Structures are given as C-alpha cells and as structure tokens.
C-alpha cells in the first residue's frame, strides 16, 4: 500500500515537473493529407508524453500566423514550434519570440537564413538527401536494367519557388551525375505537386521523346500522374518511375509492380521529431541545429517493411 502511494506521488511530481506547454502554429492543416496526419500525430504524441499543447493552424495565411505567434508569446508558452507559411515573412515575429526568451523550433520547412539566429533548431526532412537517395534508387534500377550507359530520363519537379521542390531537384541532379554520369537527363519541367498537371507534362514528354527510361518526380502524387500518362500511351512498361514522399497511391502502384521506388517520409515521424526536439531543448540537451528525421529509401524490393502511408 505504501509503495503504491509513493509511486503515485512520484508520478504526480514527475508530471508536475514535465507540465510544460508547447505551442505550435502550423502552415495549412486542411489542405493536404500530410499536414492533416501531422496534426493528429502531434496531438496524440503530446498526450502520450503528457505535454500540454496549444495547437494552432495559420490556414496558409502569413498574417494569421504572425498573429498566432504573438498570441503564443503573450501566453508565455515554454516553447514554440512553427511550420512557416512563408520562410521570409515570419522572421520578425520569430525574433520577437527569441527576445521574449521563448525557444523556437521550426518544423518541416525551414525559415529564411536571416532567421537562423533566432531559432534553436530545425526539425524536418532533409530534402537534399531525399533527392540524392532518389537519384541512387533510379541509377541502381537503370543499372540493373542494363541502361547505365545508354539510359535517358526526365524529371517532374514540384512547384517552382518552393524550397522543398528546389532542394529535391538539386539533390537529385547533383547526385545523379555522380552515380550515373552516362545517363542523360533530357528535361525537367514543373508539375506543381499536382497529379493532373504532371499527367499533362508527361504526355508532352512522351510526344517529344521516343525513348524515356526513367521518370523522377518530386513526390509520388506527381509520379502517379506521370505513370497514368505512360499507361495511357502504352509505354509504362519500359519506364522506371521513382518519386519521393511515398503516398498511398504510390505505395499501391509499387504493389502492382508499376512504380519502382520512392522515399518514405512519415508525417508521424515528422510530428514526433518536432515535439522531441522542442522537449530536448527545454531539458537543456544538445540538439543539432538541423535535426533531421530519417527518410529511408523504399522500393518494390523492401516495401513490405513499411506500412502503407495513410495519405
């Protein structure tokens, strides 16, 4: 009996010590499945750890996000996590938080460089590595197919101007010439993260080029659009499709043997990593400035090791 009471008291004390409040202002929760899943995972993980949270969503609106940041500063939360709507626009308000002594963690997409002095850490995916890994998946597969010397590929990029799109594309192109120097990248065009648009871009590629051995897309959603176009033209069999951010549709296309590989990026890992980073900073631990979570390669060969993405 005494033991149980002691345990209860100890737990109560522990939870008292851990009763920290963490505020988060997100980019645009409703807009896609990734962000929706991220928010759910964040709330669940916080509940699991017994952390109090203030969960806000800017709805893609910079002005609203700045106001939310100011609210969180007023509420004197212990730490703020921000998913920037715009890497430039939020720098001044991030600086305000820093001056108020509240540590700021940036999640998923980084803020502009001039804001780096005011944040403790960036938690998110390493998009350059993702691009590089996609390049390796593509090159390995083309080599298996005996196309390391003669292959030609095309690229469908994310929306121009988005850091994620630029970094993935740079990471892919830089790594690809290293691993497959003889395979020519015929052309890169933006698909704007949009499946229908990517389908149209791919249709035009198919008209323009009689031979295409591989397609790299900045995410699976666009990759599946490209796959649709190739299937329509009866040319999908000769093409290796590699994407990034494995979506459920990409995962299923891999199960059907139509789509070769991707990068597994879980919004659940993303959310947990952000909260872990914030808590580690509050505990005074040494946290790397760029605190990436791992986004492994997934191909038809190893996809059984991964659960199907929920988005």
């Amino acid at each position, binding site marked *: 009996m005494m033991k149980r009471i002691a345990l209860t008291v100890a737990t109560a004390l522990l939870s008292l010590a851990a009763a920290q409040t963490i505020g988060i202002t997100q980019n645009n929760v409703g807009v896609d*499945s990734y962000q929706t899943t991220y928010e759910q995972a964040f709330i669940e993980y916080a509940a699991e750890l017994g952390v109090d949270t203030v969960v806000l969503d800017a709805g893609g609106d910079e002005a609203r996000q700045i106001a939310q940041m100011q609210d969180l500063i007023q509420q004197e939360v212990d730490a703020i996590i921000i998913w920037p709507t715009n890497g430039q626009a939020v720098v001044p308000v991030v600086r305000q938080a820093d001056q108020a002594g509240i540590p700021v963690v940036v999640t998923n997409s980084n803020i502009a460089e001039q804001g780096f002095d005011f944040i403790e850490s960036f938690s998110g995916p390493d998009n350059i590595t993702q691009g590089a890994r996609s390049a390796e998946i593509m090159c390995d597969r083309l080599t298996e197919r005996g196309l390391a010397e003669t292959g030609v590929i095309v690229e469908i990029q994310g929306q121009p101007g988005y850091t994620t799109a630029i970094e993935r594309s740079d990471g892919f192109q830089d790594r690809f010439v290293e691993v497959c120097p003889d395979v020519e990248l015929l052309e890169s065009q933006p698909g704007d993260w*949009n499946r*229908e648009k990517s389908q*149209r871009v791919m249709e*035009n590629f198919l*008209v323009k080029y009689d031979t295409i051995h591989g397609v790299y897309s900045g995410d699976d959603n666009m990759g599946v*659009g490209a796959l*649709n176009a190739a299937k329509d033209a009866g040319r999908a069999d000769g093409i290796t499709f590699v994407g990034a951010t494995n979506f*459920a*549709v990409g995962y299923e296309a891999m199960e059907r043997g139509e789509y070769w590989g991707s990068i597994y990026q879980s919004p659940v890992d993303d959310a947990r990593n952000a909260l872990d980073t914030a808590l580690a900073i509050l505990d005074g631990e040494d946290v790397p400035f760029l605190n990436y979570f791992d986004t492994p390669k997934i191909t038809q060969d190893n996809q059984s090791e991964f659960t199907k993405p929920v988005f």
Partner: protein
Amino acid sequence: MTQTVATPPPTWQERGLKLLRDQGILIAFLLLVIALAFASDRFLTANNLLGVIRQVSILGTLALGVTFVVIGGNLDLSVGSMLSLTTVLVVDLHDKIGPGPAILITILVALVIGAINGGLVGYLRLNSVIVTLGMLSVLQGATLIYTGGKNVDIQNQDATWFAFFGRGQLFTIGDVNINVPVVLFLGLAVVLGIVLHKTGFGRKVFAVGGNPVAANYSGLRSSRIVLYTYMMSGFTVAIGAIILGSRVMGSQNNVGEGWELRVLAAVILGGTSLLGGSGSIFKTVIGVLIWGVIQNGLLLLGAPYYAQWIVTWIIMIVIVWLDLASRRGRLWAAT
C-alpha cells in the same frame, strides 16, 4: 459600322481590319500553328494534335458553360473551386455508392451551386464578381470540410467503367486513338453551340447580355435567363469533373485551383467580349485550342514552362486590341 454607297473604296487599314474582325481569331490560331510547325517537327503530328485537344478537353468543357455566363453579361469565378468540389465528390462517392449514382449526385450538386450563383446574380441583381468570388472561397472551404484535407482515390482503377470518360478510346484511325474526352468536349461544343445560336433561349442570352434594359422592356425574363446561364456553367463543370476524376482516378482538394482564370483567359482568347452580348461557342473552342497549342508548343520547344503565362498574356493583349481596333475601325484610340 454602317457604310453608305458614296464612301470611297476601303483603305488597306479598313480592309485588313474587316478581315481581322471577321476571322481574326482563326487567323491568329493558324499563324500560331504554322509557326510551331516550323519550330518543332513533333508538333504537326496527328497524335500530338489530338493530345493537345485531349489536354484542353476539361478546360474546354468548363469554358463552354462559362461562355453562356459571359455572353449573358456576367462572370463566373467559382468554376475552379466548383471543379475541386465536384471532382472530389465524384471520386469519393464512386467507391461508396457506385459510379452511376456518384455521377448523378455530382451533376445535381453542380446544378444547385449554379442555381445559387444564378439566383443571387439574376434575381437579387448582386454583382456577379462578388457573388462568384465569394462562392469560390465557400466551395474550397466545403471541399476541405468534406474530405478533412485528405486526397481521395478510386481503389479498383482497372475494374470500373468510370474509366471510360477520362481514359477510354472510342476508335483508332491508323495509329491515332480517338479519345473519349476529346469526343465529349467537341460533342458538347456542338450541342451547346446549337443551344446558344439556334434556339430562342440562346437568342435571349445574347439579348440579356447585350442590353439588359432593352431586354427587360421587351418582356424577357432576364432573371431567369441569367439563372439558366449559371446552371449551364455548373453543368459543364460537372462534366469536366467527371472527365478529370476518371482521368486521374483520384483528386486533390485543390485540383481546380486557378482554373477560373484559365477558363476566362480561354474565353477571352477566343474573342468573346467580357462586356456581354457577343461571342460564340466556336470562338471559345478556338480560344481553348490556342491556349492548348501555346502550352504544348512551348513545351516541345523546351521553353521554361512558365514562359507560357507571359506568352499567353501577350497574345491575349494582341487579340483584345485587334478586336477593339476592328470595332472602332482604327488601330489607335482617337486621342
């Protein structure tokens, strides 16, 4: 422009302008095609040209309905997010209640939205930009609430007859496939062309858009005509959504984002006046094709994708200018 017998023979400027006025859009289109044919040997192949029509078939289908609204003297800026909502709806309902009912409900929903737009503009006489710009946000919000932000997908993509609308092929000539979206778009253009140009309803649309006051005095129920033009727009959005959903076999929540302006650009490119009362389905089809040819041509030439925005704008300015020039009989404004 009335000409009396006594006028001297037309100058080169007047002759040129008359030709431009009558066939300007067609001439612009043909010049564009010829230029692209010289620039890329891939361009003038049957497969590529049909590909262009297929790529613009969804945009074109929407533009047909919007043409009614514009000729009726109004704008419909809600078609983009209406496309998002209806595409999400038809894809999501497909697996839940089957393709047939999903299509029916989608068309009904689009007609109701069109009727709300049309009611507010026609009967309450509210400004159409305000009404449909508001509707644009409302429908985007409704889409996100409906899906909770998740993409929707059709599970058994190879096992549904729903694939017919976006992926089906009717027949093959040589190595050229005639696709269902192309046939749907051009078929609908013919039908709606007849409705607009050969029926009493069509004439009333022109009358209401050209001179609403006179139309009222001559006993036309212009409120109802406006209502019908918006329902027409809703209907073509639903058809576009069915083609789009079938083609992609899934939908993002923002799939129609920005389409309202693209559709409007195609209608204007064709030469239908934003002031209402003039235009035609044929012009819209040409405008849509110009849009598609620019997009396809620049890609074949390897130009940066976003060059098309700049090129489209320049061509649009030239077309609107020539249209105005032919109406006033001179290239420049008098003063």
